């Protein structure tokens, strides 16, 4: 089966600091993958390279079958870890932008998600609380019928209620046969929605395994394993 995300010996440095070190990775369709790592382990760099916002120094990348760029962006939906809207925008404006830029935007799905997230089109995006902004971000990302979703820290720094809402939305609104890659360090909250996890440490992949296999082999939760892997960090 065709892979939705492929990294082949990908490296990236910012000055002297290595962000990604020889990353090789292959993720197929119909999966929810947890991209785990402590702060500075390379999660965001990997996401940005996959979505075409950053170019790798070396190695090859395929997202949804294409080199990251205009073609791949048509079927890859990326949610950055910081809000992307301008200060004058209402919630409705942000969705209109999404509609104008992406052919796979689904207005029906967007409306259902707005209701689900208790967001109103008239609200000013920049004056929403942090939790509501995260809800809007995830709404924007999932309002498209993409084949690959890249969500960078979707529940970072939000209250438990919004967290719950975002997790529920992920389970209710994901597209079958599409793949979602979610980066997080809040492993305990999210591990049940993953089928696979990739752990990054110091810019390299230290583990890529199915979560149920980890539980069977080690008798440990993913959260427990995560804490052991990053104990010295």
């Amino acid at each position: 089966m065709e892979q939705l995300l492929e990294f082949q010996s990908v490296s990236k440095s910012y000055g002297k600091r290595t962000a990604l070190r020889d990353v090789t990775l292959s993720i197929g369709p119909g999966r929810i993958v947890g991209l785990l790592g402590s702060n500075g382990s390379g999660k965001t760099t990997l996401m940005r390279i996959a979505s075409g916002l950053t170019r790798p120094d070396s190695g090859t990348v395929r997202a949804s079958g294409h080199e990251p760029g205009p073609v791949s962006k048509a079927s890859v939906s990326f949610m950055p870890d910081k809000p992307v809207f301008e200060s004058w925008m209402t919630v409705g404006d942000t969705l209109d932008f999404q509609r104008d830029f992406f052919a796979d935007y689904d207005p029906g799905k967007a409306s259902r998600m707005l209701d689900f997230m208790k967001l109103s089109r008239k609200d000013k995006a920049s004056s929403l609380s942090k939790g509501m902004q995260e809800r809007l971000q995830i709404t924007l990302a999932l309002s498209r019928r993409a084949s690959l979703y890249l969500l960078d820290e979707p529940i970072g720094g939000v209250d438990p209620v919004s967290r719950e809402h975002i997790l529920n939305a992920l389970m209710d609104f994901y597209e079958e046969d599409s793949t979602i890659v979610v980066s997080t360090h809040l492993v305990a909250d999210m591990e049940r929605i993953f089928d696979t996890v990739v752990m990054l440490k110091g810019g390299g992949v230290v583990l890529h395994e199915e979560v149920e296999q980890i539980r069977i082999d080690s008798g440990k939760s993913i959260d427990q394993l995560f804490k052991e892997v990053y104990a010295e960090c």
Partner: protein
Amino acid sequence: MTIEFDNNLPIYLQIMNYIKLQIVTGSLGPGDKIPSVRELASELKINPNTIQRTFQELEREGVAESRRGLGRFVTSEDEKIMSIKKEMASELLERFIGGMRELGFDSENIVKIVAESVDGGGREAGGTKRGTTA
């Protein structure tokens, strides 16, 4: 449907046990339709592939069967349901007996305690225990 999951154990096994329990207690009757992967994933907030695996295992064990285009159903074989019941009972017993042995009771005492407890309509366990060890 609510399950308290333990993240240290494979989730698919926990869901299997939960569905079996529902079958044994009758909340899912013989021949009843089982929710779809999507429904259960969304309800339990569990990865759809994990749910898929649960169903595959249930089918492999003959507890559930899928009918093309109609969905998945609980087996209508009474024998199978009875054997699930026995299997669950023996798991309970094994755990109980293991726990009692760890507490230092021998076979004879375990039988005695169980018999007393059943006769006494479930008197407080602590009282019974003191009585037999004294």
